[in-house]
């Protein structure tokens, strides 16, 4: 029986945590993520969720608590945004390096200076090289479903997962959300089995100093050097693609909702131009595609759901026939271009296609992005492509003089 309730993205995330029976939650307040952990604290204090809730003094300590609690075998969660995520940066690396299946909800927000509490994706994009899996959600239903999937993925590949969704646009916007049945979630998500449990019964020194080269242990067995361990993390991230797709498929079978595995597409089959994006801007792009189709332009959308590991094969498959690609994104790799645009182009390298790719930087620090503006951007790009402009970077709705 379905249980549909109207809720914000933050509430959807909190319900996901509750359904996953998370055992240790640690958090530090930051807008716009705060309501997630406020909601959870109510459940914990009321006894509705049996968990340890550690109210620490900083985000750096938040991720440390998650790392340590996960090391002794607990399922852990936190949520944060913007500067909170950046303050965790060192610990994000530590979590991934320790191969701990921590799940973090990143409620995307712009990064200072100057201060902005509003949405863009510069925070999580800037942490893409920390060894975390990154999933970008397009609506509140996908947030709760992705959180549940995130634990199963993380605990299978022993990599932490960041479930990202746009601040305010989703975090504070009410939408109908179908809350999955708790027993069915338990069946879908088996208990966390750590790769190593730190305990007095089996004394170990976890994460000590390691040399560049391999060394023998007391029994004479050759053990990894630093670089070998790093390769294993890379290998795990690369290998997680199959697990992500399989998890998404199985979730769809059990709960009736398929969010597309690594990426999703909308009216892409016959498209003469493909719009690409992550999160809510990709949802907005579907409305833009409809507007364009009304005007006779066959537009489609490819939404990148998983940004790390990057869906190289799926991107090639999705874009290889497109005559034109327009990437809309809420981040910028300063001195180059949008991170997604660069990655899509890189994925298309070497398969003999010469598709023009135009990149729009949009909605930074919460600047409004409307569907008709995306549609207009596509029209102007198509005109530029027709006159031979194969590459172009445009800052949408921005004073650039």
């Amino acid at each position, binding site marked *: 029986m379905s249980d549909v309730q109207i809720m914000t993205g933050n509430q959807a995330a909190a319900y996901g945590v509750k359904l996953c029976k998370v055992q240790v939650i640690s958090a530090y307040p930051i807008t716009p993520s705060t309501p997630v952990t406020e909601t959870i604290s109510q459940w914990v204090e009321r006894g509705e969720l049996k968990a340890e809730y550690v109210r620490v003094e900083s985000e750096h300590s938040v991720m*440390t*608590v998650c790392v340590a609690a996960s090391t002794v075998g607990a399922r852990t969660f936190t949520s944060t945004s913007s500067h909170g995520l950046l303050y965790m940066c060192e610990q994000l690396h530590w979590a991934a390096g320790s191969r701990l299946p921590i799940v973090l909800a990143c409620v995307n927000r712009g990064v200072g200076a100057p201060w902005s509490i509003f949405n863009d994706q510069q925070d999580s994009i800037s942490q893409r090289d920390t060894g975390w899996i990154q999933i970008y959600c397009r609506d509140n239903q996908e947030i709760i479903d992705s959180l549940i999937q995130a634990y199963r993925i993380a605990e299978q590949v022993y990599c932490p997962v960041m479930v990202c969704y746009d601040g305010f646009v989703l975090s504070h916007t009410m939408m109908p959300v179908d809350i999955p049945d708790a027993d069915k979630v338990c069946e879908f998500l088996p208990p966390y089995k750590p790769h190593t449990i730190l305990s007095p019964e089996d004394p170990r020194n976890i994460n000590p100093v390691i040399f560049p080269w391999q060394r023998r*242990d007391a029994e004479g067995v050759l053990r990894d050097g630093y670089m070998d361990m790093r390769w294993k993390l890379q290998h795990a991230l690369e290998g997680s693609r199959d697990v992500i797709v399989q998890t998404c498929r199985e979730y769809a079978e059990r709960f009736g909702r398929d969010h597309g595995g690594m990426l999703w597409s909308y009216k892409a089959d016959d498209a003469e131009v493909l719009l690409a994006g992550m999160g809510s801007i990709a949802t907005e792009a579907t409305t833009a595609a409809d507007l364009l189709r009304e005007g006779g332009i066959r537009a489609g959308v490819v939404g990148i759901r998983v940004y790390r590991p990057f869906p190289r094969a799926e991107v090639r498959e999705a874009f290889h026939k497109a005559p034109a690609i327009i990437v809309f994104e809420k981040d910028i790799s300063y001195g180059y271009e949008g991170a997604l645009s660069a990655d899509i182009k890189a994925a298309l390298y070497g398969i003999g296609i010469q598709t023009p790719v135009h990149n729009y930087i949009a909605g930074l620090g919460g600047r409004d992005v409307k569907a008709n503006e995306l549609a207009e951007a596509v029209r102007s790009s198509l005109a530029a492509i027709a006159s031979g402009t194969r590459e172009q970077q445009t800052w949408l709705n921005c004073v650039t003089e």
Partner: protein
Amino acid sequence: MPEKLFKVHKEEYMLPGNRACSGCGLSLAYRYVLKALRENTILTIPASCLTVLHGLYPTTSVAIPSLNCTFASTAASASGLVAGLAAMNRSDITVVAIAGDGGTFDIGIQALSGAAERGTDFIFVCYDNEGYMNTGTQRSSATPMGALTTTTPILTKQQNKKDMMKIMEGHDIPYLATTSSSFPIDLYDKFVKAKRIKGTRYLQIAIPCPPGWVFPPKDTVKIGRLAVETGIVVLYEIEDGKFRFTGRSKTLAEKGNRAPVINFVERQGRFRKMSLEQLDQFQRSVDHKWNEYMRRAE
């Protein structure tokens, strides 16, 4: 006092062949720390001399489970262990965080203050060798005035050592104590006691460092003793707010025969550029603190 030696736990948790420097005060203290803590303990350790002592992957010289953590996060790591163990119904395990003075007085103070304010059930140990010794003797806020370090290489440190005990006392925790690697029985007794107490417990161990303080490795115990004899290091404990001198400091307090700080200073190369004015200031600061302790002990 020597008869108490027979009460010290016989089991060794520090195995032969650790990577500490010769004459390391930490390795002397750590042996007794672990003997007092025994099994059913999980340690968490930030980047420090102790990381080096514990050895290089995949071997270790310590038979107690330990989780290495980042420099600023020690007490948060302990908080995570406590929460995780509670979630796993393992309330029988004592969580112990051990950091150097840099990891406690400086970069670790925020997480430590947070954990203490929350009343986290763990023991925080600061082994205080008065500087960033693992990275090559840089100045920390625990370095005493007048000491040469590699970041105060010419003019010496101009400020007094931070009074970390006072800061920790401000957190209203049930047990705080100072001790020294040169007084193993005092140290052992305090750790045995701390293990029995619930809540946040803070122990600070004075640790002489031969290469950092510039004295011969054979003199580690002697230098540590001189620190206590001169009242620079004072052995005491504060249990539920009640101050008490212990061991040698108690005797000194009773007899009133503290030695002048020059006896400690003159044996270490790090003080070779200390001015007479600094020496005088050092003596006055030690006297001032000693008098404070005397008043509290009454």
